[in-house]
């Protein structure tokens, strides 16, 4: 194995772990793992989003449907912001899609770890259950789950997260209309804070550098052009982080390992 491989990205290969006895067992375990901190945090995020919808003057049906059908908090927030600004339909569609390009990389990193028999058309349905929380938990847990049980585990995890997003959104919407402003202030602060806190868990240095550069360059590109700033920042900061990792970090690492493979 190359010495510079990130442990996070390496699936368990040829390891005989009998963590689950059946697919049903794996599914149940996924449900159970989701019902702890990940679901709590996602639920809070959806409550926060519902509150944002209410305070911004959107209808309950609009706010709820976006949670059910998009199930991507950053994209939902971008959609709301841009509708508020009265941006053009094309700009909205493009910006939200660009915000969601992270699903491509999430899927590409997670789905090949499923068992070969599970690599079929049904994955086009399962992929809707993918969100940042379920992805992060799966990437960590898959290393300790045998391939044939990974899809069931993921389905349990993702399904619960998706199911709670609708009641969470409705609750936040109704709360924001009923509680004092200071409570609402806390609710709408949940999402930005959650996104920020998850960065602390990111391991490989290349991604840490990308986050740091994204934070610094984001506001700069935002001033230049609002609609495309997320994409421009992502590509420029991400490419720079990749280059720094390739040019400096990997060389130094392999030098300290005596260059062994």
């Amino acid at each position, binding site marked *: 194995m190359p010495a510079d491989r990130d442990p996070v*990205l390496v699936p368990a290969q040829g390891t005989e772990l009998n963590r689950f006895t059946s697919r049903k067992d794996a599914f149940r375990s996924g449900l159970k793992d989701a019902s702890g901190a990940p679901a709590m945090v996602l639920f809070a995020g959806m409550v926060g989003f519902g509150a944002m919808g209410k305070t911004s003057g959107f209808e309950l049906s609009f706010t709820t449907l976006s949670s059910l059908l998009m199930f991507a908090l950053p994209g939902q927030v971008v959609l709301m912001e841009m509708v508020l600004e009265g941006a053009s339909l094309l700009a909205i569609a493009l910006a939200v899609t660009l915000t969601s390009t992270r699903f491509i990389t999430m899927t590409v990193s997670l789905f090949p770890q499923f068992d070969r028999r599970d690599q079929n058309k049904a994955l086009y349905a399962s992929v809707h259950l993918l969100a940042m929380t379920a992805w992060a938990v799966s990437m960590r847990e898959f290393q300790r789950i045998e391939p044939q049980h990974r899809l069931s585990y993921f389905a349990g995890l993702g399904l619960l997260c998706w199911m709670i997003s609708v009641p969470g959104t409705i609750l936040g919407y109704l709360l924001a209309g009923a509680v004092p402003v200071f409570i609402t202030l806390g609710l709408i602060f949940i999402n930005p804070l959650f996104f920020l806190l998850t960065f602390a868990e990111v391991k490989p240095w290349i991604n840490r550098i990308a986050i740091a550069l994204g934070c610094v360059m984001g506001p700069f590109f935002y001033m230049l052009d609002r609609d495309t700033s997320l994409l421009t920042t992502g590509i420029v900061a991400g490419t720079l982080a990749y280059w720094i990792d390739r040019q400096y970090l990997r060389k130094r690492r392999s030098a300290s390992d005596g260059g062994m493979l």
Partner: protein
Amino acid sequence: MAEHLQGWWVWIALASACIGTYLCRAIGVMLAGKINQDSEIFRWLSAVTYAMVAALTVRLIVLPIGLLDTVPLWIRILICALSLGIMLSKPQQRLVPALLIGTLLMVSYGVIR
């Protein structure tokens, strides 16, 4: 409710947002078997993704629209720094307390202002 938040175009905006989001998920499934997850392109895409989510987060905190904009910038940043400090003290276990304390601090600010 604001005038411009009603009417058909808001729903078309939602529909195109849903389609755009699902499209990215579907492209991911399509490419999943074809791109090696340890390949160079994956490392690059992963870095691009993290940079993009970082930019969105900074935008929501530093340049928000609406109610959060009524909170002074230094208060927003101070609360973020405190929460992040709690989180970094033990990243595996402190997400929930850090999120809770940050939210409560924002509520407290709303009470005393």
